[in-house]
């Protein structure tokens, strides 16, 4: 709760910041400081120190998992802000407002991580979505940005409609929005529940961009300003995933027979479409969009398996995926050329950045000794605990092999090709430090996952 309230307050502060602070540096500093505070507050809450005594009435509950996850995401956001804040300036004039929106989104993130009522879930997702629509369209003169915003908005609203339909049906069956209650479900109610579950499945699949509800993802990620793509592809997606898993665990955990196969199909289709389509992309940004679909496919295993391994894996996956993707996007945001060729020869001209990128790409591709490997490993392990899942696991590993193809195209460009005509941007020292730290984090998590997973049960 600490983080939720503070992020709301920070959002408001930043909102006023746009009028009070004219210096961009001070805005940035304020945001970074606020982020630090947020992270600290959340860590303190993990330690049992709560700043606010709020009667939550069973609407929210911050358990260890939510707190750990939240801390992780906040850390990612902190790093994200440090890396990407200068790039936000390029997007438009409302510099402080972007931060305000980011903080509001964090508010929603806190909600979806800890919801105990469908109402909170709904509100949380909306609080996340609405600022994202805006951020997507924040580069107002850019037609691609406009298009992306409109598409995102229309499709997002549509999925909100679906979600509400689902909530309504579930409400019809259960008589309550709370996930804590465990009302008896009569056979007659079961149909309502399953129909509701289906709609929730669709809408959540949409939010995490699982095929066939993924269509918005490439267009929006591609069209949105790169800094914000980075944010929505990582923090938001990871948070929504937790919500997804929580929802199905708490609400439909007893009916896994009804949905597990569908999740499996969803997973397979997502893996397939994400990985296969990414192969042919020419723009790294769009490739990353598809890769995020592919990664979502892997994260869906947590839902599919719905066991302890799955949740631990989700945590690790989120860490691996967020750090790597934020890092790559941060570099990408500064590149002039978003195609693969734009990275040509970077291993020679910018060896440090290239090395960090290599680590990130390794992680995304699931090469051992990076967090990405262990994350995938956890997911597969979790899935294998479900009987009859062998085909899915096999399919997933084959798709992971396909993913190597497009991730390593970047590596190839960086290391094995000669630099092209477009020069690579200069990266300031702090940027290198942070990027290096993230790369180190990815490796450390890959070598000693206990550091993170151990937090879950102490």
């Amino acid at each position, binding site marked *: 709760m600490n983080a939720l309230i503070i992020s709301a307050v920070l959002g408001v502060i930043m909102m006023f910041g746009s009028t009070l602070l004219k210096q961009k540096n001070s805005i940035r500093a304020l945001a970074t400081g606020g982020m630090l505070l947020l992270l600290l507050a959340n860590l303190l809450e993990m330690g049992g120190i709560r700043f606010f005594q709020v009667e939550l009435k069973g609407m929210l509950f911050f358990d260890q998992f939510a707190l750990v996850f939240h801390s992780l995401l906040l850390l990612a956001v902190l790093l994200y802000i440090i890396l990407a804040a200068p790039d936000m300036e390029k997007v438009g004039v409302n510099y402080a407002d972007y931060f305000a929106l980011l903080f509001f989104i964090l508010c929603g993130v806190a909600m979806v991580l800890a919801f105990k009522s469908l109402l909170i879930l709904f509100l949380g997702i909306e609080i996340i979505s609405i600022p994202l629509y805006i951020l997507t369209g924040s580069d107002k003169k850019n037609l691609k940005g*406009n*298009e992306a*915003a*409109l598409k995102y908005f229309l499709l997002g609203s*549509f999925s909100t409609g679906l979600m*509400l339909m689902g909530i*309504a049906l579930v*409400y019809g069956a259960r*008589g309550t929005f709370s996930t804590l209650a465990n009302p008896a479900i009569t056979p007659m109610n079961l149909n309502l529940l399953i129909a509701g579950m289906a709609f929730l499945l669709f809408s959540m699949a949409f939010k995490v961009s699982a095929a066939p509800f993924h269509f918005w993802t490439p267009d*929006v990620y591609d069209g949105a300003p790169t800094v914000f793509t980075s944010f929505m592809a990582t923090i938001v997606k990871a948070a929504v995933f937790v919500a997804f898993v929580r929802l199905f665990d708490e609400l439909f955990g007893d009916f896994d027979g009804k949905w597990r196969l569908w999740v499996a199909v969803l997973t397979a289709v997502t893996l397939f479409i994400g990985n296969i389509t990414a192969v042919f992309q020419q723009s790294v940004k769009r490739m990353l969009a598809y890769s995020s679909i592919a990664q979502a496919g892997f994260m869906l295993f947590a839902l599919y398996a719905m066991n302890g391994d799955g949740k631990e894996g989700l945590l690790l996956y989120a860490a691996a995926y967020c750090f790597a993707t934020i890092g790559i996007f941060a570099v990408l945001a500064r590149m002039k050329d978003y195609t693969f060729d734009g990275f040509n020869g970077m291993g020679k001209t910018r060896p440090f950045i290239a090395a960090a990128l290599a680590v990130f790409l390794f992680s995304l591709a699931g090469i051992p000794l990076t967090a990405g490997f262990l994350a995938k490993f956890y997911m597969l392990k979790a899935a294998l605990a479900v009987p009859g899942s062998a085909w899915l696991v096999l399919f997933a590993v084959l798709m992971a092999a396909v993913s190597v193809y497009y991730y390593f195209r970047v590596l190839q460009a960086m290391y094995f090709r000669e630099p092209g005509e477009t020069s690579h941007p200069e990266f300031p020292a702090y940027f290198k430090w942070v990027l290096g730290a993230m790369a180190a984090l990815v490796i450390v998590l890959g070598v000693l996952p206990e550091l993170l997973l151990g937090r879950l049960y102490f």
Partner: protein
Amino acid sequence: MPVINYIYIAIALFSIGVVGVLTRRNAIIIFMCIELMLNAVNLMLVAFSKMHQNAAILAGDLAGNAGSDGQLFVFFIMVVAAAEVSVGLAIIVMMYRNIHSVDINFLNRLKH
């Protein structure tokens, strides 16, 4: 009134909304269709809310507020819808300012 009737009407309206989304190209109309979908959900929620109240009363809980949460949810939906409309229309207006059209097919630079 059997709840099934409300369900039928709600899903009919919902489906009409979906059909609208599918058949129109005007972004504003599409958005309106989505609003229609939301309203269909609202109607359903209210009907369920009254159903649960009915069930509670039949079960002997006369004084309780069973079912009121459904109506409150509708209230929140309206709140969210209002917020969404403000943002959505802003986006549509922004697009209109750039390309002088609200045709969703007009913009398709992002594909494949």
